[in-house]
């Protein structure tokens, strides 16, 4: 427990150190980042004026915002990434031309969405990754794979246990064959998912947000106590039933299918979560990879402990710890999804006056200074806290009361 507290302390320290590391790095960069924020506000204003039909004021805003803000950002940005600087300059010019040519609002909106992405890229170029964001992303990546892998190891341990108890060890091999197939299918899913998504007729930003919202829904489903416990039980019963029917038929294909089904479900979830993690962890890809490497190593040790040494693991303790971190990850994904929907102009940008976190930390936590993302994150956190209060406080209290009243009735 003390170690766990120490870990939490390390995490908090990372969180606190990251912004100060970024702010201590030098005046011109900090100024440039503030100017980027002013540029964003000007771009929002330009789009709002275009959408309200005031092209003249929109053009004036586009021109003055560019000259007063972005031109100052160019000075350090040119040194960091000259190509990006030129591309952004041209994008501003394209928008100005589109406005003065009276192009349709939808066309200008699409150009603004591209520009917003470039402004974020510019901020990434001007920001140090710091300490907190890499640690958080490594942690999220580790947690996603380790948690899903841990479930697979446990499920396999149960299946192998059944087969050994039923004195049918000859069926273990086809089940492991199914597991291997599922592992290959998972890798293929991870690789194919982005390609399939690209084929869909929606913008990249909208798609990223939808995938993230889907990931949030799945994370909620697997972590929220009220659902997760029932679901785990149901899933175990389903797999067990399929195993028995496969054994009774004695078909190798059915046994392979049992191994495949048991693992691929977790594999698909993993692919979905990594899709969101990679999308929103732009510039932090190596830390996602680091988390994967650590998780694979940790899973190898866990598998060795369970299968080779035949030891039992403190599953409940681990799952209770992991579930809180999974919930935090889902809150981060939700914030990022809602921010992306605003960037794509599906939701109107409603910025707050709260200070902006360094961009990498915003990506890792999903905390962006906008009303929809903060409200969404607060609401989901409240749901989790409410669930925790019900499961850990109200339910035991009710159980105690019922047992007390039953005892009284018996007496």
């Amino acid at each position, binding site marked *: 427990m003390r170690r766990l507290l120490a*870990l939490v302390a390390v995490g908090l320290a990372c969180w606190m150190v990251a912004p100060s590391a970024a702010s201590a790095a030098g005046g011109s960069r900090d100024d440039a980042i503030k100017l980027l924020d002013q540029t964003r506000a000007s771009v929002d204003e330009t789009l709002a004026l275009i959408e309200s039909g005031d092209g003249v004021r929109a053009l004036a805003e586009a021109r003055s915002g560019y000259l007063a803000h972005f031109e100052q950002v160019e*000075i350090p940005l040119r040194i960091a990434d000259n190509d990006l600087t*030129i591309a952004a300059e041209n994008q501003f010019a394209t928008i100005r031309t589109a406005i003065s040519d009276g192009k349709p609002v939808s066309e200008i909106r699409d150009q603004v969405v591209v520009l917003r992405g470039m402004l974020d890229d510019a901020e990434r170029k001007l920001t140090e*990754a710091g300490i907190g964001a890499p640690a958080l992303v490594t942690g999220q990546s580790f947690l996603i794979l380790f948690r899903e892998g841990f479930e697979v190891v446990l499920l396999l341990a149960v299946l192998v246990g059944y087969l050994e108890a039923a004195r049918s060890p000859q069926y273990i091999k086809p089940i492991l064959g199914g597991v291997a197939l599922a592992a290959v299918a998972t890798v293929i899913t991870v690789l194919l998912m982005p390609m399939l998504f690209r084929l869909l007729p929606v913008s990249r930003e909208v798609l990223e947000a939808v995938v993230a919202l889907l990931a949030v829904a799945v994370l909620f489903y697997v972590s929220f106590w009220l659902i997760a416990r029932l679901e785990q039980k149901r899933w175990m019963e389903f797999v067990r039933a399929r195993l028995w029917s496969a054994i009774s038929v004695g078909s190798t294909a059915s046994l392979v299918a049992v191994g495949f089904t048991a693992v691929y479900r977790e594999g698909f979830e993993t692919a979905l979560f990594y899709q969101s993690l990679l999308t929103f962890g732009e510039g932090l890809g190596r830390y996602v990879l*680091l988390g994967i490497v650590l998780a694979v190593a940790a899973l190898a040790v866990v598998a060795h402990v369970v299968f080779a040494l035949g030891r039992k693991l403190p599953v409940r303790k681990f799952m209770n710890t992991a579930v809180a971190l999974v919930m935090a990850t889902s809150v981060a994904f939700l914030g990022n999804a809602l921010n992306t929907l605003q960037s794509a102009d599906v939701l109107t940008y409603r910025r707050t006056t709260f200070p902006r976190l360094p961009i990498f930390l915003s990506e890792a936590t999903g905390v962006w200074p906008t009303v929809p993302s903060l409200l969404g994150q607060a609401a989901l956190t409240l749901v989790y806290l409410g669930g925790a209060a019900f499961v850990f406080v109200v339910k035991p209290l009710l159980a105690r009361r019922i047992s007390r009243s039953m005892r009284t009735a018996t007496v």
Partner: protein
Amino acid sequence: MTRTTAFRFAVAVLAGFSLLGVSCGADKQSADTVGVASTEESHPIVDDATVTAGLTKTGEILKAAATTPDTAEADWDKAHTTWATYEGTIKQNRPDSYLAMEDALAASETAAKAGDSAALIKAAADFQSAAATYLAAFPG
């Protein structure tokens, strides 16, 4: 390995990734490349004669690009490199002309990428027109 040891292992791994994240944390590349640059370094201020020569050269490159769409992208790079040597002076003297020239250059790049001859010709003409307006106010 006992149950407690296994749990300790899991905690140690969690702590491990935090520490590894910490040790790998700082993104030195972007930190080092972002130095303090003065406006003069980024957008040099030059004399009027240099601006006139630069505008003439940029205009000629854009015109040439309009006649040879196959090499238009390479020409555009040359035009932009030339533009960068004197753009600061135009921005300082006449922001409207500066924006008009930037718009023309951006249109030229888009046209070069698309291989659109008509748009290349229009962009070159827009640049010449903006240059003429500027030179009328600031003859070199």
